């Protein structure tokens, strides 16, 4: 037995000679290592959430677009990562910035190892990049089933290179909203509202899908082709969200990440339950799609507040988000805004709700612990924090919407934003990529243009 241990240690030393010279592990260095490991795991979880978006978007749309919808997510995650490395990160967190924009650290080269007992810049970048491309994938909800592939390419560059990093800088990178004390723990505003506002600009410019509205203004239901995908998507996102929220604690040594995870679970659960019940009550039938969106809305809403509120408030926030998302879906439909993946309601409406919730429910203890902003209205903090939260929503929302709208309007007028009617009817799988995601099932579909 002893022999075995000695020989395997010898083998390890041969493979990793540095092990022999490393300084003795101290409790501090072990803790740091565990912290970093958790951030890495969290980053991986957030990147895995893209799998959720692939299933969500594909499941909520029609078969003829499935390959395109799924494939373009991977493509834009790739492109977005490169852009974030080249430009985006420097604008969000660059060292030579001001209150409005960060500068420096373009084509970022991180330090090789830890310098001063904080998250190494390489790991921080991976984590932040994962968030940036999540916001991007949310925006695609507004593009679904009718935007040209080329518009995805160009918008990825602008969104990840400029729009998203600016908002991230304002709230997380020492910008003016950070100075004001805006609380957005893991990104209800930065990630979700930003994505949703870009989706809103896109869906307004693209106009509704063919067949969504009748001449008399009534809406048709365009059902997604696979509800099982959509449900699995929600589960993937739900699990990934622990990386998103609890990962944003950036460590484990104080155990606070557990509290964040705790609130996250409650928010998601309450959202799912509330949404199912509200459709049951209002429509007489319990609607699966709305319930799934309710779970996501609960997650989006609790994202800003998970580190700032008590568990009971997390439940309230989730419940309200679940009900709110249902009425929001109805509202956008009535406004003739076709939102195939319900991004506007799930990420936009719930993102606003979650950010504002801090202004009501943030407790003095948790605010002190996090060191950001003040307590909420219900905890004697007065209206101040609510106002700051409101301001951050309005400013960030307006900024993203306006810039996205301008960029997409330029795309629309210069090279065209929407595919032709024929292409839309045949499906983007064929028109943009030349092959169906479901070749066997879609064979008949080739006659659609006849």
């Amino acid at each position, binding site marked *: 037995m002893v022999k075995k241990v000695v020989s395997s240690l010898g083998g390890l030393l041969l493979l990793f000679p540095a092990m022999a010279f490393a300084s003795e592990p101290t409790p501090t260095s072990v803790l740091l290592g565990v912290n970093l490991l958790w951030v890495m795991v969290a980053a991986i979880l957030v990147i895995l959430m893209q799998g959720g978006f692939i299933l969500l978007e594909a499941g909520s749309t029609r078969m003829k677009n499935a390959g395109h919808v799924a494939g373009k997510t991977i493509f834009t995650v790739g492109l977005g990562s490169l852009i974030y490395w080249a430009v985006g990160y420097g604008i969000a967190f660059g060292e030579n910035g001001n209150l409005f924009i960060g500068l420096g650290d373009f084509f970022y080269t991180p330090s090789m190892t830890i310098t001063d007992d904080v998250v190494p810049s390489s790991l921080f970048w991976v984590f932040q990049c994962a968030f940036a491309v999540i916001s991007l994938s949310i925006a695609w909800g507004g593009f679904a089933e009718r935007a040209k592939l080329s518009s995805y390419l160009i918008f990825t560059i602008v969104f990840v290179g400029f729009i998203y990093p600016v908002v991230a800088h304002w709230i997380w990178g020492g910008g003016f909203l950070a100075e004001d004390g805006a609380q957005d723990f893991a990104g209800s505003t930065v990630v979700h509202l930003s994505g949703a506002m870009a989706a809103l600009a896109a869906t307004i410019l693209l106009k509704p899908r063919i067949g969504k509205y*009748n001449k*008399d203004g*009534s*809406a*048709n*239901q365009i059902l997604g082709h696979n509800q099982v995908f959509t449900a699995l998507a929600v589960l993937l996102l739900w699990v990934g969200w622990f990386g998103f929220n609890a990962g944003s604690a950036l460590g484990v040594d104080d155990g606070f990440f557990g509290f964040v995870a705790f609130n996250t679970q409650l928010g998601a659960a309450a959202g799912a339950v509330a949404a199912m019940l509200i459709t*049951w*009550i*209002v*429509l*007489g039938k319990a609607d699966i799609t709305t319930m799934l969106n309710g779970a996501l809305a609960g997650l989006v809403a609790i994202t800003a507040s998970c580190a700032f509120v008590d568990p009971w408030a997390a439940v309230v926030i989730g419940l309200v988000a679940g009900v709110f998302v249902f009425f929001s879906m109805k509202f956008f439909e009535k406004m003739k805004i076709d939102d195939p993946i319900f991004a506007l309601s799930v990420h936009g409406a719930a993102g606003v709700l979650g950010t504002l919730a801090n202004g009501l429910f943030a407790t003095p203890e948790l605010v002190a612990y996090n060191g950001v902003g003040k307590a909420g209205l219900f905890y004697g903090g007065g209206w101040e924090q609510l106002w700051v939260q409101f301001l951050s929503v309005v400013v960030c929302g307006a900024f993203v919407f306006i810039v996205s709208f301008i960029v997409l309007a330029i795309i629309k007028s210069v090279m065209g934003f929407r595919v032709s009617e024929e292409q839309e009817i045949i499906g983007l799988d064929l028109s943009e990529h030349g092959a169906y995601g479901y070749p066997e099932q879609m064979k008949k579909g080739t006659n659609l243009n006849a």
Partner: protein
Amino acid sequence: MRDSAREKLLNRIGSADGYPELRRLRDQAHERMESLLSSMPVEQFYTAINEIHDALIRRVLILTESDMARQGNGSPPVPYAYLLFGSGGREEQTLSSDQDSGIVYEDPPQEEELEQVRDYFAKYGELTVENLQKVGYPPCEGNVISSNRLWCDSLSAWKSKLDGWFDRAEFEEVRYLLIVADGRRVYGEESLFTSYKDHFFSDTLAKPRIVKRMLDNTMRHKVLLGLFGQLLKEQYGEQAGSVDIKYGAYIPMVNAIRMMAIQSGVRSTSTLQRIEELEAAGAVTEEQSSALQDAFRSFLRFRLMTMKQDEDGLYSSNGMLSRQKLDKTLTEQLKQGLRVGKRLQRSVSRRVTGKLR
């Protein structure tokens, strides 16, 4: 329509000698009835319109008999009865109604003749359905129709068929049995029909299992009233915002009352009459009976408001009441009726399962 005018029209229908003429008379009748729609009490209206339908169908049957003879098939070899099911059976046809029908004929005295008799009625059924289409009655989508061999049979065959349905009691068979419960003779031999119905009623009550299955089938359509008493409207499509009167108000109530009628051995087929007889039999109180009748009358009226389309010259309705027609008063009235309907569904459900225990 004043009685004398109606008599005159009915007489003209009774002596019409071709399908185009019947079609014209039907159109005339419809025009008159439509103008009376708002002023006439709803029951009277339904009675009048069903009298006209019955007269038209009878005339088509007589003309078809002569068509058969002219084509060399002779006259009916044995007595028969022509049955109406569905809304026709319940005397609740609107201006637009499809054909739900069946034929029961006497067993021929000689076994050998059966083939020939069967052939005659198969042809006769088919021809009748065709001719009724000429007068503007679309065939039944569910294929409950006299041209379907399943619904055109001799009395003894019918009896064994009913026995089989009672025995198997799968979804489809239960549906058939509930359809038979609404059957009414519109033409032909009354005694044949009585014997047919006797068979149905003697078997129904003896088998608790079938009653439970009937209940499940009967409760399939829910009253369109939400938890907070709000109307549940169509969410999508051209009909968004309208209320499905047929399947969300009228049919649930028809079904529930039919269920009670079957259980109490009440044989009439019209829903209002069933309610009255249920009251007489002590199955519902006088107060309940009048609430049920009021609710059902309002549904009948709403149902009349759903008609408009005229596809390929055939009268039909999708049973939807559009949001434009639903003003505040009508919405309140509809909700009031639906509340009665919902209570009824609940009490029938309790009553039936309670009796079974």
